């Protein structure tokens, strides 16, 4: 079983060479695996996004492939990644990814807004809220998030855009007020940013189109 004598193992170069060879083999294995899985992973991620899009945006409202073009924009320090849904070349809705600070960490939101400024649908993508208390913002746990469908900046008015405890119209969960408050605030500020930059988002601004 002794393929290599103990004496040659004692040399200074042996451990270095051994490490090098093992690292080389392992790296090529990883490279191979990465190449093998890159396409299926990309396909799965796109399927995930498509499923999400179907949930918040009726398929009849667009005829393009919104997922083909992803846009990034930073407005007043808030990062938005978004997709444009178009019908006959005109933007009919945008789907935004944004974050709102929750009780423990950021809550990732997916917000779909139609061209007239109404919410087409909202979903919580990920969060680290307390299980059993704050996690009712997930559709899997409660249909609370569906209550935002169809709302806009004017429906309800500004005072209505808060949880009931703060005088607004949205239910807060027992034992967790901070979480729904954060979601409501995140959606409201997203709607505001959309309204303030409507030309940019909807590509109706000639200058934004050109650049």
């Amino acid at each position, binding site marked *: *079983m*002794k*393929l*290599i004598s103990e004496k040659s*193992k004692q040399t200074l170069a*042996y*451990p270095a060479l*051994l*490490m090098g060879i*093992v*690292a080389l083999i*392992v790296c090529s*294995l*990883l490279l191979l*695996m*990465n190449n*093998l*899985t890159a396409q*299926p*992973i990309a396909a*799965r991620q796109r*399927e*995930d996004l498509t499923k999400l899009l179907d949930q918040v945006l009726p398929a009849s409202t667009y005829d393009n492939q919104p997922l083909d073009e992803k846009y990034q924009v930073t407005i007043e320090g808030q990062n938005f990644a978004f997709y444009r849904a178009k019908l006959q070349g005109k933007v009919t809705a945008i789907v935004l990814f944004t974050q709102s600070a929750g009780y423990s960490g950021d809550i990732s939101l997916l917000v779909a807004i139609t061209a007239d400024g109404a919410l087409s649908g909202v979903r919580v993508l990920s969060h680290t809220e*307390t*299980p*059993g*208390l704050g996690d009712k913002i997930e559709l899997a746990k409660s249909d609370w998030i569906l209550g935002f469908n169809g709302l806009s900046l004017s429906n309800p008015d500004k005072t209505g855009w808060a949880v009931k405890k703060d005088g607004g119209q949205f239910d807060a969960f027992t034992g967790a007020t901070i979480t729904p408050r954060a979601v409501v605030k995140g959606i409201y500020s997203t709607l505001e940013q959309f309204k303030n930059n409507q030309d940019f988002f909807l590509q109706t601004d000639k200058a934004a189109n050109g650049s």
Partner: protein
Amino acid sequence: MQQYDYKEIVKSNLWKNNVVFAQMLALCPLLAVTSGATNGLGLGLITTAVMFFSSLLISLIRSFLTPQVRIPIFILLIASLVTIADLAMNAWLHELHKVLGLFIPLIVTNCAILGRAESYASKNPCLPAVVDGLTTGLGFTLALVILGGCRELLGSGTLFANASLLLGSAFSVIELAPFPEYKGLLLIILPSGGFIMLGLILSGKRVLEQWFSKKPAKIIANEFSCH
């Protein structure tokens, strides 16, 4: 040739020296994922696969190893295997990957894998090393499923919820909800509940072992008195 008592290896790794219940290793991934039995089973099986291959590879190259670089080589191999498992799951078991995704890279930090590599696989031939890796992994899976099952039953009143995501739709029959009206005990789902539950299970194991170690003695005594 040294004889290997495979029965003893299996018994020791599954129960007597179970990584969790006896050696108290690998508690970090254990407590993190065991809010449900399905998650526990998933992570347990991936860890078992990683342990199987790491034991095999390390046992194969054991005659080349030198004491100076053995630990970096173990870590390199284990980390690569985990990365491969992560990529493969993301591509072909995507639903499960979404649930466990965060914890898969953590398998690298599972000291039980490095422990078995160092104390067993690097000193023994392939077959016993593979048996050891496999059974240690299964012992870990057992611990994850028991702890996950207990916490899920008490914490949310279900057992193996979403199992069909992990094992295919045929397994939806094992998704149980024994107490449909039960709202669940939040504490058990939270990390502190994991510690409490683990403590209860550990003491339960001690009681069981005491009971078992007394029982055979009694039987022998009876046999003596009969004959």
